């Protein structure tokens, strides 16, 4: 039975960590808890709920910058930005329904701690690329800041990058500053039908090599495509999104058509259908917990775009999967087995290059098979030393990423 604490301000966070250090307690760091099921299951002495550390600190649309307290709901931020025609361009996904939770939850701090991005990552970068500044509390109970509120900044080590994707194991985010960008004015999607995975990889490489700024490139095998109302029938669908100005969208779509024409028949989706489709791809809707694959484990694989289909060929043919990021991001739902596919997936990824994360699996599996990509040798030792230098008593989410970290 663990205690729950809800800090009201920055001082409370410092006090909580100091209490944990003094009493050798471990803290689970939580925003809304929308990604709580990711990582190794661990017993914590207390839960620190940061959702009370909320509120926008500064938003200057002309400066393309937003500073906010880390517990602010992401939904509040996206609404505010949209009212000014702006957005978080990296299109952060919503993990909620994938993990059996509600839609629309999540804090900006949680988004950054997990470095969450979406389909547009191939063009504009990930959350970490838009993370300009931070105030955080280390596992030493000390406040430190890094970065600033300007994009061009090389003053000191870039601790924002390190904290992004550290899953609360190095510091507790308190205030964060993000780069924001104008929303695209118009979008359209081109669907190419009937390609197998390797042909789709070639088509996506061709589209990405065209000077069009393709902002989404995904491949949905037939059994996945058939679950989308906006895609016709039962054929595999490789989808490309173009966004930009209404005035030039037509020309861009025409150029994209010439780039993909050699690869098969195609159709164009209108703006509303395009938006629905990419939201579903972003949030990995085909594998939602309440859907037909909801009881399957789920892997997220990041690899070289041309290597994805090679990985697919090496794992259980009963797996269901689809590709985003022009082939470089794979969502794989293998059949339920004792190791949830860990053995064959890790083996395939080791050959192809990249890494795999077991995003969804029963706690017992996440306890026995590392959900985060295992590290070895000098790299694993360096990771441990980084942890020790931020959180020497291992009070912040200890063991969530790896045992001993």
């Amino acid at each position, binding site marked *: 039975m663990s205690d*729950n*604490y*809800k*800090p009201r301000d920055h001082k409370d966070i410092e*006090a*909580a960590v*100091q*209490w944990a250090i*003094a*009493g050798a307690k471990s803290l689970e760091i939580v925003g809304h808890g929308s990604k709580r099921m990711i990582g190794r299951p661990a017993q914590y002495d207390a839960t620190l709920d940061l959702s009370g550390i909320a509120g926008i600190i500064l938003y200057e649309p002309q*400066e393309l*910058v937003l500073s906010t307290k880390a517990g602010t709901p992401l939904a509040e931020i996206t609404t505010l930005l949209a009212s000014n025609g*702006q957005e978080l361009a990296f299109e952060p996904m919503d993990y909620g329904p994938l993990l059996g939770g509600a839609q629309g939850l999540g804090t900006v701090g949680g988004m950054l701690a997990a*470095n969450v991005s979406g389909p547009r990552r191939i063009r504009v*970068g990930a959350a970490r*690329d838009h993370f300009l500044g931070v105030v955080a509390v280390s596992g*030493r*109970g*000390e406040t*430190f*800041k*890094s970065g*600033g*509120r*300007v*994009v*061009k*900044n*090389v*003053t*000191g*080590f870039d*601790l924002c990058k390190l904290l992004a*994707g*550290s899953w609360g194991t190095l510091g507790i985010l308190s205030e964060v500053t993000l780069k924001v960008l*104008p929303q695209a004015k118009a979008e359209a999607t081109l669907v190419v039908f009937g390609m197998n995975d390797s042909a789709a990889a*070639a088509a996506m*490489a061709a589209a990405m*090599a065209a*000077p069009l700024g393709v902002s989404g490139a995904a491949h949905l095998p037939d059994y996945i495509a058939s679950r989308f109302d906006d895609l016709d029938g039962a054929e595999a669908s490789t989808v490309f999104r173009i966004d930009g*100005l209404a*005035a*030039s969208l037509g*020309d861009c779509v025409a150029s994209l058509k010439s780039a993909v024409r050699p690869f098969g028949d195609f159709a164009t989706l209108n703006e509303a259908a395009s938006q629905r489709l990419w939201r579903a791809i972003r949030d990995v809707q085909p594998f939602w917990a309440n859907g037909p694959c909801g009881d399957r484990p789920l892997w997220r694989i990041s*690899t*070289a*775009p*041309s*290597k994805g289909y090679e990985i697919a060929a090496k794992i259980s043919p009963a797996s269901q999967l689809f590709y985003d*990021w022009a082939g*470089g991001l794979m969502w794989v739902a293998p059949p339920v087995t004792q190791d949830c596919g860990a053995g064959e997936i890790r083996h395939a990824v080791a050959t192809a*290059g*990249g*890494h795999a994360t077991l995003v969804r699996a029963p706690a017992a599996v996440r306890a026995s098979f590392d959900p*985060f990509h295992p590290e070895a040798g*000098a790299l694993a030792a*360096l990771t441990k*030393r980084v942890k020790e*230098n931020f959180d*020497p008593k291992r009070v912040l989410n200890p063991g969530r990423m790896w045992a001993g970290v």
Partner: protein
Amino acid sequence: MPVLMPAQDDAVLKRRREIVRALRNIVPGEGVIDTEREMRPYQSDGLTAYRQIPMVVVLPHTTDQVARVLRYCHQNGIKVVARGAGTSLSGGALPLVDGVLLGMAKFNRIVEVDFANRVAVVEPGVTNLAITQAVEQQGFYYAPDPSSQIACTIGGNVAENSGGVHCLKYGMTTNNVLGCEIVLITGEIIRLGGKHLDAAGYDLLGIVIGSEGLLGVVTEVTVRILKKPEVARALLVGFPSSEEAGACVGGVIGAGIIPAGIEMMDKLAIHSAEEFVHAGYPLDVEAILIVELDGPRSEVDHLVERVAEIAKLSGATSLRASTSEQERLLFWAGRKAAFPAVGRISPDYFCMDGTIPRAMLPRVLLRMRELSQTYGLRVANVFHAGDGNLHPLILYDANQPGELERAESFGADILKLCVEVGGVLTGEHGVGVEKRDLMPVMFSQADLDQQQRLKCAFDDKGLLNPGKVFPTLSRCAELGRMHVSGGQLPFADIPRF
């Protein structure tokens, strides 16, 4: 110019002959240089005010040699400064009297160009421009374009997180590098990232980029390459005041337009550049903007019209939009020649490098004019206006007693001003030795301690490039000590649920 560097280690210097011999065993032939005459080319980088002949220069050509050199230095407590092309403007590659200068110039191979994955794998001594040259036949390029791109190496770009004029739209080095092979001071070799987009585990790549040679030595880099936009066009716009030029920049971005680059030059910079390269800049204005738009042709043509409208509304008194590639390059010619052009009108100049929130520009320019009068030194302003990165050029004459010191104080005041208005000390040139002692203006001791703890995780003995970035180097053992305050229950009044 004196700059306080770490105390020299006499014990190491006494063993110099033995150290040179040991290094020759690792890197045979001409790869070890130990005569003063031959080491002189390495005594400074692009910040020539600071000079130091190193203890010895080593030019390895394999990763294994780098690993063995570093392991030897680690075992023997010898400091190491890595160097690429030596174009740093902040003294990042300034040698140490008791240190090994590790020159990476022989790592000059393009290892692989992989168009299917849109990446290039290169050795760190390859120049920034050579990467683009290796891929441009297929219509690709490497986006970050620091002005030294003909000479500077990608290894140096990684160390400094170099920028350029196109950062607003395409990011800096850190946004365009996917992987690195790095040798730690222990001689251990690690690979971070690869051809995939996201880091596995901690984003150590994001930390190494911009770490100014304090964390490890990069021996291979995987960069993202992009397809060249279909077309690029530039507008050359003149304004009666820099306030109006600044308002135009805000107007463009506020309208949802992200240009490939927006550059501003003030009157002194305009006149110097125009006399030098005859780019056709208007001379009856206080400021010009060069706004470049790139992308598909129809999009670019549309945006050129939009920017022109915004410029007119902001008070532009002259406006030209390029209609040919030749004309676009002419607009840029003056901007690209701005530094040498200023060099023609002054015996010496300092190039500063702060970043400010764009809206603070009028206030900062006004204050800079006041400071210029106080110090009795002229200042020309060249400004990456889109991302708020200022490059004030302080004009001085080192032969006039006291001018150098005045120029330095003037520069420090400008950087303090940048921080005061919400900006930072350096946008793209790095801290190095130049801005090292100003770090406390921006960071508290706790902030600097936490950064140094990260260094401890990589380099426990503090042997890699000491004396750069941090004004005082603390021992890792001291930094590791915990100061726990009490242990009494602090939760007395925090809500529980």
